[in-house]
């Protein structure tokens, strides 16, 4: 069980590292779940907890505005933009400088989220390891 959690955290860290490498617009990002528990972040643990908490509160409050499942939010301010995206129980929040290309940022965040929740594929066993005939 603990091994599975560690594996999930590693996947999340790897996904975030890839996100910041691919997207020049993303300044900082955090992966967390519906309860607010942080899986991985590009900032310190303390900052990540506040970042995730505010992003979660924003999504939950905005959800009450209308019927239907809210999947993505962009809050654009003069200081920069906050993006929040959800895939099932997993969430990602990211900040960018002002006036980003929102479509691209959402695409990168969704890809990161999917990569983070993906279970690592089992390694293929070679015939020799499997005990097959040479």
């Amino acid at each position, binding site marked *: 069980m603990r091994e599975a959690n560690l594996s999930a955290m590693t996947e999340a860290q790897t996904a975030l590292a890839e996100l910041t490498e691919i997207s020049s617009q993303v300044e900082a990002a955090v992966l967390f779940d519906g309860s607010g528990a942080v899986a991985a972040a590009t900032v310190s643990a303390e900052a990540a907890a506040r970042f995730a908490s505010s992003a979660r509160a924003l999504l939950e409050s905005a959800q009450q505005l209308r019927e239907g499942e809210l999947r993505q939010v962009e809050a654009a301010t*003069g200081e920069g933009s906050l993006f929040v995206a959800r895939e099932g129980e997993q969430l990602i929040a990211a900040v960018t400088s002002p006036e980003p290309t929102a479509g691209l940022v959402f695409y990168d965040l969704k890809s990161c989220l999917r990569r983070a929740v993906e279970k690592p594929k089992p390694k293929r066993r070679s015939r020799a390891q499997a005990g097959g005939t040479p």
Partner: protein
Amino acid sequence: MGRRRLAAVLLGAASLLGIGLYARRGRERERLDLYFADGSMVSIDGASPEAARFLPLAHDALRAARS
């Protein structure tokens, strides 16, 4: 000499005015875009009372992410 000084003062004043207008433009562009699972999108203007509930949370998140 007097003309040069006047030109410099005017240039400085115009620059300050430009910076002020640019900053104001940025504040006016605050908004919240909500995307729903059915493909619909709702955009809330930053000046509306509804946005006043959400934008402080966005500012908190931005501050936390940059701290």
